[in-house]
């Protein structure tokens, strides 16, 4: 059934289609509608799940950790400061190998207070071990909830689904949704090997000596890498059943391209239009959409970018002093290819600043003009007395 819904509700409907058993979340702008919808669904019986009210995100995450440890399919959602408050329990969920799915609405971190989008909240969780999907449309959000549970429950690691504040969370568009019966075609019931039950008491997360901890981390890394294949296979299976697929990355008009623009999140959509315009002008420009951040798809990135003349990365985030986080990851992925491809790193749209086609054109113009980047990172649109780019 096709309906017009906002991105937040796409998460809620996705959780319903995944037939989750437990939802626990604490409301925060711009995530609130996710929780509202799910609590309504739980209250009305539309979704046969337990909604656990909590007093903070730390507790929300702890509640879904408990639920997942007890063998329940568990979902939560948050944003920004809320995600940061969850941080400790995110590590726990990974170490305990609990396949929780978490929706995070990208919102800039305060202070100063901001409710608008950027990626520093989710990207700063890089080394927790959460798998991370970045979405471009509401349909993709809905579908990714099912995909995330599939991947998580296969490799036994939690997944974070990331969407931009307002540009996706509050944008209404057409989404094909379905209920748990249809979802079950793709997502079988969750049956962990070990789970908490009074019938068979056991302890989770015990003190582990150096004798074993090392191997347990090794296994997390191994399964994180395995998630790349699992995600691809899940995507293919999803396409067979529902006719939609996203891959773990997406190439857009990369054939014969000298320059590849690398984007994530909603900027990708606008960038598609820009790429079309440049192609129409005969320019050899292509687009790489980064969908998986963790595990980082090194091989795919090398395959797409390894033989180009230039790579241009747009980051709606900042790693202070070193540049955008996606740019760093791309650089790291390409380094051992020993090809010295020029990688241009651009910062744009932080704190919800609009990224219009003009902004992307400006970025491409700079990269086009130079053979090699003269600066490690370019901040686009910093006010310098000129008319702001977004208003041009």
């Amino acid at each position: 059934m096709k309906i017009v819904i906002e991105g937040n509700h796409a998460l809620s409907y996705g959780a319903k289609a995944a037939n989750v058993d437990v939802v626990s979340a604490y409301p925060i702008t711009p995530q609130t509608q996710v929780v509202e919808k799910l609590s309504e669904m739980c209250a009305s019986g539309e979704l046969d799940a337990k909604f656990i009210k909590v007093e903070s995100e730390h507790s929300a995450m702890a509640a879904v950790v408990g639920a997942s440890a007890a063998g329940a399919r568990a979902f939560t959602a948050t944003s920004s400061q809320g995600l940061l408050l969850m941080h400790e329990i995110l590590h726990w969920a990974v170490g305990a190998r609990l396949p929780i799915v978490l929706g995070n609405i990208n919102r800039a971190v305060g202070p100063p207070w901001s409710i608008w989008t950027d990626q520093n909240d989710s990207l700063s969780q890089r080394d927790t071990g959460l798998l991370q999907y970045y979405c471009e449309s509401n349909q993709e959000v809905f579908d990714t909830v099912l995909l995330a549970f599939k991947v998580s429950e296969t490799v036994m690691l939690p997944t974070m689904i990331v969407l931009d504040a307002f540009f996706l969370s509050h944008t209404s568009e057409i989404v094909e949704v379905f209920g748990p019966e249809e979802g079950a075609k793709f997502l079988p019931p969750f049956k962990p090997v070990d789970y908490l039950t009074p019938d068979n008491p056991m302890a989770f997360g015990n003190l582990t000596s150096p004798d074993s901890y090392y191997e347990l981390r090794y296994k997390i890394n191994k399964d994180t890498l395995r998630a790349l294949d699992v995600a691809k296979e899940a995507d293919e299976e999803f396409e067979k059943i529902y006719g939609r697929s996203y891959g773990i990355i997406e190439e857009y008009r990369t054939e014969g391209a000298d320059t590849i623009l690398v984007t994530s999140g909603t900027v990708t959509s606008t960038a598609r239009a820009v790429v079309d315009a440049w192609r129409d002008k005969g320019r050899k420009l292509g687009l790489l959409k980064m969908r998986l951040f963790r595990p980082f798809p090194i091989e795919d990135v090398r395959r797409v970018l390894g033989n180009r003349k230039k790579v241009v990365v747009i980051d709606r985030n900042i790693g202070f002093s070193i540049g955008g986080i996606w740019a760093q990851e791309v650089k790291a992925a390409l380094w051992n290819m020993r090809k010295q491809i020029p990688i241009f790193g651009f910062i744009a749209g932080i704190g919800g600043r609009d990224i219009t086609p003009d902004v992307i054109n400006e970025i491409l113009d700079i990269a086009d003009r130079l053979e090699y980047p003269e600066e490690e990172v370019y901040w686009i649109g910093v006010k310098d007395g000129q008319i702001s780019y977004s208003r041009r």
Partner: protein
Amino acid sequence: MVEIRTHGRGGQGAVVASKVLAAALFKEGRFVQAFPAFGVERRGAPVVAFTRFDSEPIRLRCEIYEPDHLIVLDHALTETIDVAAGLKKGGWIVINSHANAEDFSYSEVYRLAIVDANEIAWRHRLGSRSAPIVNTAILGAFSRATGLVGLKAVLEAIAESVPFNPEGNKQAAIDAFNETRISNAMKA
């Protein structure tokens, strides 16, 4: 692709108007997108919402700076904000007002549709006398003026999206459709 920008005040229902308009266009087979100009919504504060529709999937995910048409839920806004900024030539300005076309000094390259949505909303007891909720009425006027969306689709979208007093809201849209005053079409 057609881009519509809606100006209103917190409490008038501008954001919902943009969504209902998108839902109505969706019923007519369009690809749609609707979203607010993201901010902290406060009763009485100026708010902006956007609607895009197309026969192709919509790719742009940024705000609308050069809209094809405008919806203005409060004519007093025109005194403080340049609501017509970036409006494309030939665009419609659908405005809630009891004034006449001559009272507005918009460039003659625009087309003006005026409806007294306050009066219509209050007629159907939508909102209060001091703060009528005019979003559904203005959509009737938009349908009548632009012809971009049919009244039938608007009424269906209202029925699905408005939880409180859907009949009153639908009737408001119908009344507005009938009572909209179309100014002289573009002189230019």
